[in-house]
């Protein structure tokens, strides 16, 4: 599989996290190859969102290490990890609602290029930033709504802006937390297509429940149960796995 020469884009080793008695991550050894299209699934409370928070630096692990391109990033802050290329989207749309779509993406691009704290020149005079943000919107077919405040957009469109903001950060590893959550089925197709067309060099980890979506997008699937990796494999392997079915369909203990 992956040769020793090319380390995985993202790796966790023995990652642990608990809040008091509640363990949300228990010795998770996880690898995400470069350019991967991988899904992370698991029942409610399995620790998926905690895993995302650990990887992005929102939570500090109780134990274990996180590596990006074989470099240890465990001690880095959230902002520093973003600069290194670990970027996430949110399950519940987390955008600058009162600002325009273009402004949302421009903020991200400008932060990535290190000019977010620049106080001397007008934001509008940095044309390359605006053009880059705008080009991104064109790629996601959001440019017609570039100047509209995000809060006026349909929710499905807001989900796309969510992805656009993440792309503005030029991610190496992109964690998509339920990218189609809360979107009516009629609109989710656009989101799937957008994800399918993402640049091949971005390693994608999709946290998702919708199996149709997972099977369409992912080439590998990791199943997380109670803070532990239950199994990992190709979609076919996961679909055939009796344990996974049991987790999802449930059995009475005596049955």
């Amino acid at each position, binding site marked *: 599989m992956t040769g020793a020469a090319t380390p995985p884009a993202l790796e966790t080793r023995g990652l642990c996290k608990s809040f008091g008695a509640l363990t949300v991550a228990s010795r998770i050894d996880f690898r995400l190859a470069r350019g991967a299209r991988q899904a992370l699934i698991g*029942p*409610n*409370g399995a620790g998926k969102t905690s895993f995302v928070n650990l990887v992005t630096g929102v939570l500090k692990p109780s134990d274990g290490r996180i590596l990006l391109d074989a470099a240890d990033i465990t001690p880095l802050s959230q902002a520093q990890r973003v600069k290194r290329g670990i970027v996430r989207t949110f399950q519940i*749309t987390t955008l600058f609602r009162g600002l325009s779509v273009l402004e949302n993406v421009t903020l991200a691009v400008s932060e990535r290029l290190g000019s977010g704290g620049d106080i001397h020149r007008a934001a509008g005079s940095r044309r390359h930033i605006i053009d880059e943000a705008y080009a991104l919107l064109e790629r996601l077919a959001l440019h017609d709504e570039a100047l509209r405040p995000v*809060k006026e957009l349909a*929710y499905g469109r*807001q989900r796309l802006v969510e992805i656009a903001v993440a792309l503005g950060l030029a991610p190496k590893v992109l964690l998509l937390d*339920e990218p189609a*959550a*809360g979107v*009516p*089925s009629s609109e*989710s197709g656009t989101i799937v297509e957008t994800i399918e067309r993402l640049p091949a060099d971005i390693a994608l980890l999709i946290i998702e*429940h*919708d*199996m*149709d979506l997972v*099977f369409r997008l992912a080439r590998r699937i990791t199943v997380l149960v109670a803070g532990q990796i239950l199994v990992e494999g190709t*979609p076919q392997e996961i*679909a055939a796995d009796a344990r*996974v*079915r049991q987790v*999802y*369909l*449930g*059995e*009475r*203990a*005596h*049955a």
Partner: protein
Amino acid sequence: MTDAAQGLVLDAVRAGYGDTVVLEGVSLTLAPAATLAVLGRNGVGKTTLLATIMGQTTLRGGSIRLDGREISSLPPYRRARLGIGFVPQEREIFRSLTVEENLDVASRPGRWTLERVYDFFPSLSERRRNRGNQLSGGEQQMLAIGRALMGNPSLMLMDEPLEGLAPVIVEAVLRGLDRLKREDDLALVLVEQHARIALEFTADAMVLDRGVVVYAGPSQPLLKEPDRLARLMGVARAH
């Protein structure tokens, strides 16, 4: 199938939180004392369905009737007083109240009293002076159920009552629910990830996918056809 003047009737309900519409035209009819399993993957709107019946979401269309009365514009507390009991997914025990106070604040006159709830869940009786934040997961679950019963509901909404419980506790809670079904004539809506358990327990079932009903009918056929169930729930993929 049922007398529409009795029980719970949802008609083309559209609802969600803020901008997000989660349920897109859900209809269901539940006769008094009937049992219904609500199945589906995470995030398809099961919890939202219960929250909508309880009145905690933004209703965008459709109607909700309880015993012939339109309740969709009533605040949650009025719905509770009309006989809807709610056992939420996270249990949401009042942490700074004792077990007995948790039960007491929810009580309304009727067949269910403190004594009967304690008789039903003896372990709660032993911990009646303990505060909500000192209970184990199983005890919290029993308390959440007991608290809902204290309101003497005609309809119970239960959101994943078995989630996160140890197998022994799951059995204890299930025994309680079995007994409840036998001894009391309340209607029950059970949202469960453990589909088989829920189907064994209920007469009817409903499967949701992305806020739309993809199956509504008796529970038994789904139990007998695991592949169909898996497909409906999107665990396996239609090939």
